[in-house]
């Protein structure tokens, strides 16, 4: 297929606004008469609010509204992916930083001063921070529904039988600490009421979800809630629907004025959301020849105070099913008195993959196989069964058709990556460095992973395409603009289908009053799943244009095509008319210009299901004197189907590699032992890898064209973080002979492990950093 727009390095649609500083994020918005909000937060991990007195604060000049638990509904609100379940403000606080009251005032200074005048009497309650402690029956109960969620299970065959059939059984356990999304942008939300209509401006990846949930919670018609979704400064799961969004809404209603709540970096780090702390175990049955007979994975996820997740399965149950007759994947969600945990880039897959990959490594080493060989033997291929969304269908009580995998380029990912890193010459065997120079030991390592390309059950997105009289095109989607390049990618799809230059397309995204409904921009959804709707809308617009042209060119509509802005009769390129001439022409019959508007609501099919795959290869140097791990080379090979825009995708991969390697080597939230408070809520103490810390990753796309996705595209954004920790851990193991099974492996943790020969973090508090016992 010869493509004109797809596969091209088209500049970002909004690049001009971005490089000139004209792009408006929510923090940049200010409305006439707008008030500023500040939130009073709990100093306790767990307490009951016995009394709250706001009278002094109300008396302060400039204060226009104060809300406490008395001013918000008694009911809880629920985030659709269970990232939150709780009241907006409760009479009980469940973590340090939890909302207690909020003030709207004429300035931030006044609002802050008012907070200091609110008198709160707390009755402290026992708290629990540790995942395992929280599961005990006598643990302090964080959630009104108990600490432990009903487990979700994906299961097939009979694992006991599967283990019986194995020649080798490997058991492995891993842990991971908590990472923060740490986008550069700041969260902000502005709410204003005009009569019974609510308008919200916020930087968000989940625009329609905010509208829908907000409307239901406020018992308003969805048509009277308008969410203007603005671009986010990165997001990675953070600019979702969060509890703070409700605060300016209630304040604005009480004050009768627009209210803006802008969170500080400290608030973003310690009160919104973060990656969960978790513990994973894998039992893997393997035959002598390396084929898997059974996998039993148990994953325990710490939800923090208001996370309610019971199911972060994305694709781990489906990645190794080629030979796998028996599998059981269990998920247990647990509440604690820490800041709410929830979705972050690579949710579920990253941490589960870490455990799975290490279990596979252990098995391979015991069997005398290399890491490539065992993976090549077992990874899923097109046509293999896919079961990860079974729990959804069970919950929704829907019949679930059998599902199979649409495509897999895993094979190529592994082989291409091996070639690029020089595997043959550098792989010296398990626990064998490639080079030792004094205290410096070098080795390579690799790992693979997968992630979902959207999810059909999340809903059916719709897209509108309008062709104007001058031939320019407007594109409308409800998707979130989070720096992932969606505006450009979707425009490329329209350009390809409609045969017009991509520059002639202008997108409007995420304004709920203007744009058609879309699934939230999550789960690497847009290229693959939203793209299907965009493609359909563009095809319908094309149909209308061809119909118009049929009169003009004297040919049947189906014999007409459009390329490079020219409408022509197939096989007769001379019988043509420029696109813009056609759309400007007055129809002699009707006496008016044509009005071309096309919409489509379309999703991906139930089956086959697309997953995207990657194999990452790392070469590291471990300084055994200090424990510092230096990444010397990093090769990331991705099968995301057809790459719609290579530059956008390369940025996605590099960002994932920096975040994934950062998580592995040191990015972690540190919680106070006594209060659970996050102690490093800033960019000085929370260490993020930048351009000098990792050499530029070499990014390779293998482009296994997917039969389902738009032009064969699959997802990419989220998965990019998934294999990093496992690849680095394997490389470090090869360099030093010491296995790291708890993320992160900071220099000190590496140092200690090298001294003791066991990967163990000596830190006393278990929630302080993850470690393995």
């Amino acid at each position, binding site marked *: 297929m010869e493509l004109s727009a797809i596969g091209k390095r088209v500049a970002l649609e909004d690049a001009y606004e971005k490089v000139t500083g004209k792009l408006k994020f929510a923090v940049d918005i200010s409305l006439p008469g707008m008030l500023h909000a500040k939130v009073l937060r709990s100093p306790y991990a767990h307490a009951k609010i016995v009394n709250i007195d706001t009278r002094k604060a109300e008396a302060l000049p400039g204060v226009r509204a104060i809300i406490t638990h008395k001013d918000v509904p008694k009911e809880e609100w629920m985030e659709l992916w269970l990232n939150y379940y709780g009241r907006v403000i409760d009479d009980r606080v469940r973590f340090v930083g939890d909302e207690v009251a909020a003030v709207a005032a004429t300035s931030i200074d006044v609002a802050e001063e008012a907070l200091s005048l609110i008198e709160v009497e707390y009755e402290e309650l026992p708290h629990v921070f540790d995942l395992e402690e929280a599961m005990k029956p006598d643990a302090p109960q964080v959630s009104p529904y108990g600490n432990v969620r009903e487990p979700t299970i994906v299961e097939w065959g009979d694992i006991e039988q599967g283990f019986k059939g194995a020649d080798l059984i490997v058991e492995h356990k891993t842990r991971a600490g908590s990472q923060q999304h740490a986008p550069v942008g700041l969260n902000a939300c502005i709410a204003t009421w005009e009569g019974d209509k609510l308008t919200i401006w916020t930087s968000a990846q989940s625009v329609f979800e905010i509208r829908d949930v907000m409307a239901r919670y406020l018992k308003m018609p969805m048509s009277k809630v308008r969410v203007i979704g603005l671009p986010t400064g990165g997001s990675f799961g953070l600019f979702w629907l969060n509890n703070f969004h409700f605060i300016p809404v209630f304040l604005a209603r009480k004050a009768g004025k627009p209210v803006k709540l802008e969170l500080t970096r400290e608030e973003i780090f310690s009160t919104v959301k973060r990656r969960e702390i978790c513990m994973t175990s894998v039992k893997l049955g393997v035959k002598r020849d390396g084929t898997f007979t059974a996998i039993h994975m148990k994953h325990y996820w710490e939800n923090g105070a208001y996370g309610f997740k019971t199911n972060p399965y994305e694709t781990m149950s489906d990645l190794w099913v080629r030979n796998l007759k028996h599998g059981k994947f269990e998920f247990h969600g647990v509440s604690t008195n820490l800041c709410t945990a929830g979705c972050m880039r690579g949710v579920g897959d990253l941490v589960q993959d870490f455990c799975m990959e290490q279990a596979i490594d252990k098995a391979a080493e015991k069997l005398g196989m290399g890491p490539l060989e065992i993976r090549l033997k077992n990874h899923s291929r097109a046509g293999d069964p896919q079961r990860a969304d079974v729990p959804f269908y069970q919950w929704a009580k829907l019949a679930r058709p059998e599902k199979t995998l649409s495509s897999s380029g895993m094979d190529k990912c592994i082989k291409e990556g091996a070639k690029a890193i020089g595997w043959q010459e550098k792989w010296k065997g398990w626990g064998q460095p490639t080079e030792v120079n004094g205290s410096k030991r070098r080795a390579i390592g690799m790992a693979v992973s997968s992630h979902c390309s959207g999810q059909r059950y999340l809903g059916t997105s719709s897209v509108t395409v309008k062709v104007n009289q001058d031939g320019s095109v407007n594109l409308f989607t409800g998707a979130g603009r989070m720096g992932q390049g969606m505006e450009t990618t979707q425009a490329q799809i329209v350009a390809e289908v409609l045969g017009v230059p991509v520059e002639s397309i202008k997108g409007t995204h995420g304004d709920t009053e203007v744009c058609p409904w879309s699934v939230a921009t999550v789960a690497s959804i847009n290229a693959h799943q939203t793209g299907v709707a965009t493609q359909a809308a563009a095809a319908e617009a094309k149909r209308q244009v061809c119909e118009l042209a049929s009169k003009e060119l004297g040919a049947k509509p189906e014999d007409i095509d459009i390329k490079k802005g020219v409408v022509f009769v197939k096989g007769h390129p001379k019988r043509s008319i420029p696109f813009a001439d056609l759309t400007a022409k007055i129809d002699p019959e009707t006496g008016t210009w044509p009005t071309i508007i096309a919409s489509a609501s379309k999703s991906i099919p139930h089956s086959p299901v697309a997953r995207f795959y990657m194999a990452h290869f790392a070469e590291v140097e471990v300084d055994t004197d*200090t424990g510092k791990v230096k990444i010397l080379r990093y090769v990331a090979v991705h099968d995301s189907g057809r790459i719609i825009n290579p530059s956008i995708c390369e940025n996605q991969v590099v960002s994932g590699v920096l975040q994934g390697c950062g998580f592995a080597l040191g990015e972690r939230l540190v919680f106070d032992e006594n209060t659970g408070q996050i102690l490093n809520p800033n960019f000085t103490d929370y*260490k993020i890898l930048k351009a000098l810390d990792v050499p530029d990753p070499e990014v390779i796309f293998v482009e296994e064209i997917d039969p389902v996705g738009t032009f064969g595209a699959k997802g990419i954004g989220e998965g990019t973080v998934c294999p990093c920790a496992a690849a680095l851990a394997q490389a470090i193991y090869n360099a030093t002979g010491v296995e790291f099974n708890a993320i992160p492996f900071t220099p000190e943790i590496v140092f200690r492990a090298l001294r003791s020969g066991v990967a163990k973090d000596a830190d006393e508090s278990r929630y302080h950093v993850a470690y393995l016992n």
Partner: protein
Amino acid sequence: MKNFEYLAPKTVKDALTLLAGDQGDSKVIAGGQSLLLLMGHGLVTPKYLIDIKGISSLNYLQKTQSGLEIGSLTTHRSVETSPLIRNGFCVLAQMEGALASLETRNWGTLGGNVCHADPKGDVCPVLIALGAKVKMISLRGERTMAVEDFSTGYFETALNPDELLAEIQVPNPAPRTGTAYHKFTMIEGDYAIVSTTVSITLDASNEKCKDARIVLGAVAPAPMRAKRAEKVLVGREIKDSLLQEAAQIASEEAEPVSDMHASDEYKRELVKVLVKRVGKEALEKAGMA
């Protein structure tokens, strides 16, 4: 940030006059790279803020017979890029190159860094290793003091409330002296987890160590000299084993405390590694000097 009155004296004299009337409620601001953060978080709440950044007579870097004289308002970046520094004091330039961001170094001053007295700071340890002094001035007169004595504790200095830090004086190194600096960080260009500066002067035969300074950063309330470790080196030929011995002693002398980034134990281990490595580098430089 709490409100304050902003005063911008144009001359040193005006600044000192303002300081002389200080009732403990004023604060000097130079580049503000550290101070404004503290004020932003409400940790420092002066009533008067005396901005000296505009006093150009305190912004200079010059070479004299005895060494370098650096006006306290000289920016980090000027130090880093000055040809005077690059010839003979390159350890200062190297240290500056990894201190915070270029944007911080463009505005932040050397004097401000020294007065801020952050135990994790990079400037003081290197100045101490180089035997630098500071000149302080007030309406009462001026006095000089070794940088080593100037940093008295955790964010504390010997500066009196009516004094300004006017100048930093770095003596010419003795012949056959090499100084090297390294900080161990979590990420590039970050604050030190541990830093080590070693200065070694060889005797005329170029064999034995005539003088040595080992300065440790971020392992005590203020930069500290590992004096017992220095003694191990002086008068002896420096071999790996001797450096090892000095490193061991230095790590015992260090008084690190655990923080969220590293435990005290680990910091001691890092001191051991750094003294050995940096010592070796200093020795090589001394041999070539």
